[in-house]
């Protein structure tokens, strides 16, 4: 584990059980800094089109037969996923690519995101007005998913 990924915290007040008055402790939860908005966030490359500046990013993959939604993390790739080819979802659908499939996929995906503790994500998917993709994004928002990420809180002097 590199030092930068560790969380270093400093005791301001001492506790009764701790002998030292000035203790540094590490919260090993790898997602903690992202939730506190302190974590490093890649800023992308200068000459590239934007789309790399995120902790979690929504991916929507529409193919001829199925629709796949996933959360991509900048470090650990796909974290949460749902797609209409999954038997549990497909079982209840009439078709796997129609508007209903998009809406229902969004409902399942939103539930899984909340269950995984991720309710905010970067999104560069854009749907034309009245399109299925727009219905998907709208359903996500209706189910409490925020399609943008907060800014990183930077230390003084950065």
């Amino acid at each position, binding site marked *: 584990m590199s030092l930068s990924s560790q969380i270093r*915290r400093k005791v301001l007040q001492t506790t009764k059980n701790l002998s030292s008055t000035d203790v540094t402790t590490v*919260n*090993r*939860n*790898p997602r903690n800094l992202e939730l506190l908005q302190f974590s490093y966030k890649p800023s992308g490359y200068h000459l590239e089109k934007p789309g790399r500046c995120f902790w979690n990013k929504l991916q929507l993959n529409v193919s001829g037969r199925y629709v796949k939604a996933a959360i991509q993390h900048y470090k650990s790739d796909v974290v949460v996923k749902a797609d209409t080819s999954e038997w549990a979802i497909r079982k*209840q659908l009439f078709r796997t690519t129609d508007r*209903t499939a998009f*809406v229902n996929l969004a409902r399942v995906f939103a539930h899984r995101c909340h269950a995984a*503790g991720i309710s905010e994500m970067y999104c560069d998917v854009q749907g034309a007005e009245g399109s299925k993709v727009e219905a998907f994004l709208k359903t996500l928002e209706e189910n409490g998913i925020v399609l943008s990420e907060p800014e990183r809180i930077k230390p003084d002097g950065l």
Partner: protein
Amino acid sequence: MFVIKNIQNSKKFTPLVVSTRNGHRMRGKAPAIARNLTQRLEEEFQVDKEIEHQVNIGFPALRISRSDKLKERLAHIKAQRKNPDLEKKSRSGQLFIDLQQVEQDSQNTTAPHNLRLIAEHYGIFRDLFKDAYFVPRISMDIKYQVEDIEVPVYNGNIIQPSEAKSAPLVNFNGTVDPVTSKMNNETSYWTLLATNPDCHLGGGEQEYLHWFVSNIPNGNIAQGETIASYIQPFPAKGLGYQRVVFILYKQNSKIDFSNLKLDNENTGEERLFSTRNFYKQFQDEITPAGLSFFQSAWDKTLTELYHNVLNMKEPTFAYNHPSPYRADQQWFPLKKPFNLYMDKYRDEKQIGKEFLEKKLAKTNPFDGPEAPLRYPNAHYYEKNTPSWLQFELKKERLGLGRMSKYVD
């Protein structure tokens, strides 16, 4: 530069082309050979697969005949496609699938793998077992009862400490075999452990034990043997989000855990626990089968718990930002503004002191500070003042830059 020599006398036109390149130097390797940043970073942070190899300590998946499964599914899809009601609903956008049913169905297909994926994302296996993992085959239904509201524990959702005050209701199907999903004839025994890998205030790697119930017959928690009673999560102020991980183990038989029983249940050190050591000790008799976890951060209700139950002062932490990168100082820094460059390597406190002294020198103890300049930019610089000093004076007069901290 092209030099074209035209020999006019000859009948044929034969230009003599000599090409030269001036003032150009190849920087780095050629584009086809050089690797891009992603590749270079990948190489730098490469992990040795032999060292990082993880062992599967869970139950294996039962392989069902693919053709049987497919036949069943195709028949179901065929029936769906012939269902006019469903088609009508689907086409009119009125079809809303049952999310609970989806959750239930996915338990036999994709959910265990998805859960393993998200658990790895949260570093659960790394921090609890170090070099082992498992695919959770048994789904647990854990719910905290807060008055009339039920707060479920999934895999990483955030639950306030005030909501997790009393032990949750845990339900799982303990009568079936985790591999074959068939009913057991005999009584099966289970162990439920709730630990927190982020709670060690001394910064150690040990976990904090929140709950330990063993010998649960057929998934009936109430009849289990409580080794450590439930204690709510109490993340310290400023320390951020902690993980509380519920792991369900299947026992081969009844096990006597009485030597692990806690005497004084509220002291902190008694509850330090290591899942890895625990598993090491009992690995022949227990197999992890279920996983669930939530995240929790400090809230106001914890102050009372620290003072009255844990009998300690409430610890408060603050985040220490990693210091920004500073390259080693050069003897001859070329093309760098010397004053700013030198300041970069000086003691911050000393620089601050100088600015404060400069301010205090202009402050009369009785009359207070000097009146601010009416037109700060319209003042004469002494003859032969270098441009860098003019700039510094300008910032000082305008109260910009470092001076801004000392302007009233």
